[in-house]
């Protein structure tokens, strides 16, 4: 086994694999995020457009952007975090690149992404 395979093996032992739907940059997703307040637990939803998926294995993360009260909000979610309960794909977007940072410069109607038709 080479070094990469050994690290992947170690990650498999530590990280419980989660079954999330496949999504990519440009898709609109809703993340169910677990929040603990005192000893109460509740689930908060965060809906936005995926800007990028980065890293791999146990260190995989994805960035989600939404416009909240006219202010752009971006959040990075580690895929293997125990707080990320579920991911729902709401819309498949048509984009040409895997990292769509150009969206940050766009506002309003220009910041729309065409929906993928099957």
């Amino acid at each position, binding site marked *: *086994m080479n*070094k*990469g395979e*050994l*690290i992947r*093996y*170690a*990650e498999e*032992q*530590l*990280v419980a694999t989660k079954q999330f739907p496949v999504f990519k940059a440009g898709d609109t997703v809703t993340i169910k995020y677990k929040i603990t307040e005192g000893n109460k637990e509740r689930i908060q939803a965060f809906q936005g457009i995926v800007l990028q998926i980065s890293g791999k*294995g*146990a*260190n995989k993360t994805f960035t989600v952007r939404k416009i909240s009260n006219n202010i752009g909000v971006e959040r990075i979610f*580690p895929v*293997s*975090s*125990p*707080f990320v309960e579920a991911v729902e794909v709401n819309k498949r977007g048509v984009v040409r690149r895997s990292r769509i940072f150009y969206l940050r410069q766009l506002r309003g109607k220009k910041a729309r992404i065409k929906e993928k038709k099957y």
Partner: protein
Amino acid sequence: MSGLIGKKIGMTSFHDASGKIIPCTVIEAGPCVVTQVKTKQTDGYDAIQLAYDDKKEKRTSKAMQGHFKKAGTGPKRILREFSRFEEGHQKSLGDKVDVDVFLEGEFIDVVGTSKGKGFQGVVKRHGFKGVNDATHGQHNRGRAPGSIGASSYPSRVFKGMRMAGHDGSQRVKMINLQIVKIMSDKNLILIKGSVPGPNGSYVILERWK
């Protein structure tokens, strides 16, 4: 002291039960072979010599081939001595030592050779502060060492004055690193935090108890 010889594989991280990210280093450790047993009667002290990582026989000198043959093993790349190995447990020539010498959750020391940095100035090499002013007469002295001593007395620079020079590639021991997990089927040890040296370099794991 009990210990093992291993190879640094690389780093990864995972979330613990509370959601915190724990950075950890993957080390492939052992199985090592006992190639020599030193005793107080014959050598003046108690120790065992461990060998790790196979190499080709044609790359081994005749003298070393004989040494490995005595222990009944093929030639190995790296040999290290461990004094008073697990006192009470008698190891004999040719015995295999693997990750089972350690327990999950216990604290061990890791010795490695740090990454070579080449010729470095005093800021990187000795942690000098440098000059962070743009004014007060500064223009290209930001990372200079400053004065290295007085003038006519003592008329020399004291020995051990910290100056620029070769940095890194040194033996470094990290103490009290916690073992996160042991995977004995692949001879892997996961250690919380970082370990000196580049990926693929040899490290020595020690437990002093």
